[in-house]
């Protein structure tokens, strides 16, 4: 009796923690959604039951039905982040290395960063066609801004006194780059790449929903067009899970490689 009461009170205490409230909220949403879905109380076609959505999700996870689309989207997002890093990091280092360049370039980048990148998609269609490359280009340009801006932020954090000391003791430019600049900016660069990945996923998949032949974004619109709403929700859930896993994996990897990137983890709010 006493043990049961203790168990109940410890369960209640657990519910009164942030994790408990989060779990309760998510459970509440699932229960309400399931009730609406099963009873057809509200927009019967728009709220399929959770079990129906999970069945579709299970099919995506256990059969090769989505493989060609995952491949297309992975190619676009992977290519986008590589291109963004190849251009964004060196340019960020170049712009951030001299105050006079930074003063000219930074406002231009900040203004350009506000423009929704998806609107440049028609230009990429003209140049690259409707195949995967135009989406890759949208993803790359979306990821370029966080990568370059955070590299600039990293360069700004490098203390001038360290560089002066290194020069005084006769360090070569290569040694200064390797031993001072690289460790100092690594954290910000990794954070930029991680946030850039999110931007690339959004940019490329959103472009797929506009015009495409394959890809996860393309399938969302296909299901929407065929009014297969449960399949569409399942695919959205599938994309969110993949995006969260990729983000978590990058966070752990970069946190392991550079402890500084752990501190700047919330910079994503600003891109």
């Amino acid at each position, binding site marked *: 009796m006493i043990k049961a009461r203790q168990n109940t009170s410890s369960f209640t205490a657990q519910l009164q923690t942030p994790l408990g409230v989060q779990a309760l909220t998510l459970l509440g949403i699932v229960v309400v959604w399931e009730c609406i879905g099963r009873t057809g109380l509200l927009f019967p076609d728009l709220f399929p039951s959770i079990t129906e959505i999970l069945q579709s999700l299970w099919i995506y996870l256990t059969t090769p039905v989505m493989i060609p689309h995952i491949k297309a989207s992975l190619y676009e997002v992977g290519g986008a982040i590589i291109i963004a890093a190849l251009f964004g990091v060196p340019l960020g280092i170049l712009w951030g290395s001299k105050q006079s360049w930074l*003063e000219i370039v930074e406002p231009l980048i900040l203004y350009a960063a*506000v423009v929704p990148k998806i609107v440049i998609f028609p230009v990429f269609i003209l140049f690259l066609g409707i195949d995967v490359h135009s989406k890759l280009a949208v993803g790359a340009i979306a990821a370029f801004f966080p990568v370059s801006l955070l590299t600039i932020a990293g360069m700004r954090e490098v203390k001038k006194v360290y560089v002066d000391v290194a020069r005084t003791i006769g360090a070569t430019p290569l040694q200064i780059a390797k031993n001072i600049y690289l460790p100092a900016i690594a954290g910000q660069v990794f954070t930029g790449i991680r946030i850039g990945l999110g931007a690339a996923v959004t940019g490329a998949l959103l472009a797929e929903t506009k015009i495409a032949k394959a890809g996860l974004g393309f399938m*969302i619109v296909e299901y929407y067009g065929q009014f297969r*709403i449960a399949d569409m929700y399942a695919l*959205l859930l599938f994309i969110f899970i993949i995006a969260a896993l990729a983000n978590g994996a990058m966070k752990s990897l970069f946190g392991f490689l550079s402890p500084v990137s752990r501190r700047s983890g*919330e910079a994503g709010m600003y891109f």
Partner: protein
Amino acid sequence: MSESTRLAAWRLGWIFGALLIVETSVRAGWISSFFLAAPTRAVIVLWQQLAHGNALVLTGITLFEIAACLAIATVFGILAGFFLWRYKLIGTSYETLLAALFSSPVILAYPMFLVTFGRTSAAVIALSSIFGLIPIIINTKGAFQNVNPILLQVGASMNLTRKQMFRHILIPAVAPTIFSGFRLALTYILKSVLGLEYVAQVGGVGMWLSDASYKFEVEEVYAGLFGTIMLSILFLYLINRCESWFRR
């Protein structure tokens, strides 16, 4: 020449230099005009659309959508942020959920909103409001949380009522941080509205760009793109001006 004028001249020099290269390349036929329109042609087409076409009406629709999103995000965002600050456990729990929602590619769920609200501006407003709502909630909660307790103690020692405390101490203390959230919200709303108008082909300027793209009207595509970029830049400029005026 002052330092800021010199920097502005440099920036304009870079922009006009790049545009001049594009103009020359297209006019000389080095780049086919099927792919790239001469900047002067794009500006002329944009002007014609503004003067005689329906570009002005479409800009009005986009501005209305942005204003509606901002109004929804501000009212509900400030209320929710205040609520999350008042109830600490709920605040701590939901802040994480909101941050997770914000960093996920929610915009891909736009077909859900098209199904619910139809292919209308309401769908754009409903989804874009979410992008404005989250920064305002988080900044409002943070603003109340970070009010200097000394200010509250001073208020209490002066025997201020709850209402006076709220009006004369809390509001002035939280306003700058809430404004930062408002600035962030406006940026996200702008991006979301223009992006959604383009992909879903509804509403204003974004829809015009999408239409031009489907018709392969190259000059119109670049005119629409130029208009969209100018609108975004104008918005950011105005926000920056407001912020510097507000912080003075």
